[in-house]
């Protein structure tokens, strides 16, 4: 694969600073865009448009066209076509941002949307002017997510949409806000929108069927608009009471534009509910013009009803099942057919009706519900405002349970392809020098058990070596060491005392260090083994890998280090797979042994995503030293989308750099004789080793590990 064109590319810098002619440009573009050119569509026009540009700009265009063409040739064509006008309107760093945005859009939404970004270069250039003060969804998503999670027990998802709205489970926010001249104010708008949409759910906007309410008016569209406005007034008052700090800020965002219509006063009172809004709507429909504020979302009743209905049904089932479980744990069965044992009571002391809380009573005695039940109660109260009686009958049998099963990773193979139950990881595109966001879809799967006799056979095969291995590792084990001449310790160090007394007799001072201390040098170490399960390991490499793991486990069990073993494979970015062989918190059990035996070659090796995932798992373990050891047989590789070659190596390198930054030490054990060409670049000059004889792998791996950790 060709090297990435950089500004230092000799082809581009050799010819001094003279501009390229149209013919030269056309030749280069022909080569780059070959895939999308035809007799009808040639690069001639593109080249003519580029010819008048300065040489550095021409180089810029060619360089990026090459990078983009590697992802998609049509996008590169669109870029080359839009570039002359774009470069007239913006400088190169803005243009780079423009390209990255177009490519991100392409990655996420496809060619049509992606090329639209290229075509709208003018618009981007104008927006870029306000770039300094703009706040984007990506900037704020994580903070707002935590913010909302803090506000309410119910976890809300965040997503982007042209106009903000919520379906009660997901809050849709604009992709970018640049209304005000500072970032702080624009962030505030984000926060205000998010809080407002949260408040719709929290303060019961959806407790009335809004669609039915507005349908009764001659102009439902207008009625909905007015309703939104009135409801916003009510919610502002609610927010002002619950979150006075934010209330003040909302007032600032509204400006001096306060409504003084006396008919609206009742919306501001503390006990106003959505019913009051509906009533005020009826009174004012004819005469009040609806207004809107910058932070007001749109009400989408048609989207809310199904989501809400599904949640209510699910939570009802879950709540009743939870009650049943509480009864079982309570362990005091009553005669069958006894009257309902659960009840709820509004707890006292709640001035604010929205903050009303309920106590759960069992046989008239308050019981403390487990946290998930408390969360359910809260969520049910948000939807219904009360706990209806039929909820309080513990579920008969688990008839509902099948419905709210957690999505499992293997669901992906049922029916349509979807991305539930998966992890998303960014991938480094070295050409663009940017991450492709959430590019890889990764799942954790179980390794199926293999032949149960594999481990025993291996141990028998290497019996003498295993015995020796165990002895070597026993020596390494953190034994109690007796530290002499300590200031502080468990017992008296007689040698030191005798010496000290002699000193004292000679007129010197008695030394302080007269004690012995037992010190346990603990190996505070966690190691993650990442095993290549790609198709290329098929046959004896796979056997050697599995045998190596068996030997390693024997050694590590002696040593007592915490370790985990995961396999990795996959095909394309949509199907990266991680296979659990042994988790950190799992003992080296028969199940683990049979899973080691069950490691079979799968597909390709998209290493970047695997490293990112395993580094994430490793970082959840508390240890002074964290090691990520890769057992590999070759370069990172994947089917299609050019992961093979430089792209894959650079992504893997980037993933390893990320891991290193988070405090993980990566190391690679490979059997690829050509490893010297790429491993030093990925892992660093010393963090890898080559075992060139596959047959020796089982014997070597434990030994390498020993050297690595002492």
């Amino acid at each position, binding site marked *: 694969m060709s090297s990435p064109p950089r500004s230092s590319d000799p082809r581009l810098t050799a010819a001094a600073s003279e501009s390229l002619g149209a013919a030269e440009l056309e030749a280069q573009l022909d080569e780059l865009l070959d895939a999308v050119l035809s007799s009808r569509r040639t690069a001639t026009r593109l080249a003519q448009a580029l010819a008048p540009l300065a040489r550095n700009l021409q180089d810029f265009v060619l360089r990026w066209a090459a990078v983009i063409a590697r992802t998609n040739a049509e996008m590169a064509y669109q870029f080359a076509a839009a570039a002359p006008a774009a470069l007239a309107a913006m400088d190169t760093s803005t243009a780079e941002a423009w390209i990255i945005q177009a490519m991100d859009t392409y990655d996420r939404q496809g060619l049509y949307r992606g090329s639209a970004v290229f075509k709208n270069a003018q618009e981007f250039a104008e927006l870029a002017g306000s770039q300094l003060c703009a706040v984007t969804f990506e900037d704020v998503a994580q903070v707002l997510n935590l913010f909302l*999670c*803090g506000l309410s*027990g119910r976890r809300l998802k965040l997503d982007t949409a042209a106009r903000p709205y919520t379906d009660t489970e997901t809050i849709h926010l604009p992709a970018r806000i640049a209304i005000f001249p500072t970032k702080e104010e624009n962030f505030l708008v984000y926060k205000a929108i998010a809080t407002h949409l949260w408040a719709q759910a929290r303060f019961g906007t959806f407790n009335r069927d809004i669609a039915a309410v507005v349908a009764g008016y001659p102009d439902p569209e207008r009625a909905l608009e007015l309703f939104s406005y009135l409801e916003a007034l009510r919610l502002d008052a609610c927010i002002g009471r619950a979150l*006075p*700090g934010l209330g003040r800020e909302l007032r600032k965002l509204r400006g001096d534009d306060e409504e003084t219509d006396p008919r609206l006063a009742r919306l501001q009172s503390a006990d106003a509910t959505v019913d009051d809004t509906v009533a005020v709507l009826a009174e004012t429909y004819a005469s009040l013009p609806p207004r809107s504020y910058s932070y007001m979302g749109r009400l989408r009743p048609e989207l809310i009803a199904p989501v809400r209905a599904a949640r209510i049904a699910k939570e009802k089932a879950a709540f009743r099942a939870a009650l049943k479980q509480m009864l079982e744990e309570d362990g005091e069965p009553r005669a069958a057919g006894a009257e309902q044992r659960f009840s709820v009571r509004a707890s006292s002391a709640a001035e604010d009706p929205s903050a009303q809380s309920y106590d759960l009573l069992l046989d008239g005695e308050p019981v403390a519900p487990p946290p998930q039940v408390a969360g359910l109660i809260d969520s049910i109260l948000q939807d219904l405002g009360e706990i209806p009686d039929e909820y309080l009958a513990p579920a008969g049998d688990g008839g509902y349970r099948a419905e709210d099963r957690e999505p499992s990773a293997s669901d992906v193979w049922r029916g349509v392809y979807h991305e539930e139950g998966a992890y998303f990881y960014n991938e480094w595109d070295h050409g663009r020098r940017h991450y492709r966001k959430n590019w890889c879809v990764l799942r954790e799967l179980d390794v199926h058990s293999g032949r149960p006799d594999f481990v025993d056979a291996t141990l028998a095969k290497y019996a003498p070596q295993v015995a020796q291995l165990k002895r070597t590792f026993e020596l390494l084990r953190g034994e109690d060491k007796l530290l002499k001449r300590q200031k502080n310790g468990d*017992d008296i160090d007689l040698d030191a005392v005798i010496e000290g007394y002699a000193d004292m007799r000679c007129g010197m001072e008695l030394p302080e260090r007269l004690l012995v201390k037992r010190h346990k040098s603990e190996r505070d170490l966690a190691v993650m083994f990442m095993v290549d399960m790609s198709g290329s390991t098929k046959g004896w490499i796979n056997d050697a890998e599995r045998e190596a793991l068996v030997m390693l486990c024997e050694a590590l069990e002696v040593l007592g280090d915490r370790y985990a073993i995961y396999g990795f494979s996959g095909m394309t970015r949509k199907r990266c797979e991680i296979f659990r062989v042994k988790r950190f918190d799992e003992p080296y059990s028969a199940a683990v042994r049979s899973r080691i035996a069950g490691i079979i070659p799968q597909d390709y090796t998209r290493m970047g995503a695997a490293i990112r995932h395993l580094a994430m798992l490793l970082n959840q373990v508390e240890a002074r030293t964290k090691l990520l050891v890769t057992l590999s047989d070759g370069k990172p590789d994947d089917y299609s989308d050019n992961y093979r070659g430089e792209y894959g190596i650079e992504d893997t390198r980037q993933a390893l750099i990320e891991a290193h930054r988070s405090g993980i030490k990566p190391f690679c054990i490979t059997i690829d004789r050509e490893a010297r060409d790429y491993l030093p670049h990925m892992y660093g000059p010393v963090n890898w080793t080559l075992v060139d004889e596959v047959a020796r792998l089982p014997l070597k791996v434990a030994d390498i590990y020993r050297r690595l950790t002492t």
Partner: protein
Amino acid sequence: MSPKTTPFHARVLKPEAHLIEKEPYYEPVGDEIALFEAAYATQIPVLLKGPTGCGKTRFMEYMAWRLKRPLITVSCHDDLTAADLVGRYLITGNETVWVDGPLARAVRCGAICYLDEVVEARKDTTVVIHPLADDRRILPMEKRGELLQAPGEFLLAMSYNPGYQSVLKDLKQSTRQRFIAIEFNYPQPELEKKIVMTETGLDAGNADQLLKLAQMTRNLKGNGLDEGASTRLLVHAAKLIRRGIAPRAACRGAIAEALTDDPEMLRAIHELASSLF
């Protein structure tokens, strides 16, 4: 430290000096006082479970005052050895002198010995308390070849935070099954408000908002925070506010920064606080 003082000095508390004379402020949440008193009367050791800063240590002080026994607190750490608890020989001048550890001292004078955060101590250390924690009630002092029989006034208590999810920091069944366990949690909002106000003299309005913030951070537990804001943190924030620090700044210093180092989480908590104040 001056060269003459031994490093053990700090750990050996003078038990008689630790009689609590003034009633510590404590709000009972449930029947924990009755439970503790019954345990004391029947000589069964007590295990206090609960998240950090919910009042376990204050409860111990209160009970020590109530029962009029000295309280010897040992803050456990991962280097705490058995000798640290039981005692050791020291050399002074020409002879060796036995110095009791805090546990032995507590047994001798019939005090309440409170092992704070006991899971932090090394596993072998906790075994030392086993014979003391069952009906034998003896403390073997191997180095002296003695057994110390605890008087009826002696009580062993320890605290433990089950919120730590680490497998390494868990109590052994053989240890925990010797104790009567009292579970602590953050008090109900009304009670917590009263505690914050009584401890610091903060006005009701600010106390309400502080409690809301506490609830919000507790909502974030498991979503990026290991623990929500404890009652202790609320008291800290309230004290700062009482000293004239602006509430937002007080929450940032006493709550947000104390809970996390993660910049996004800090920002989120700060946004929550500035929404409330």
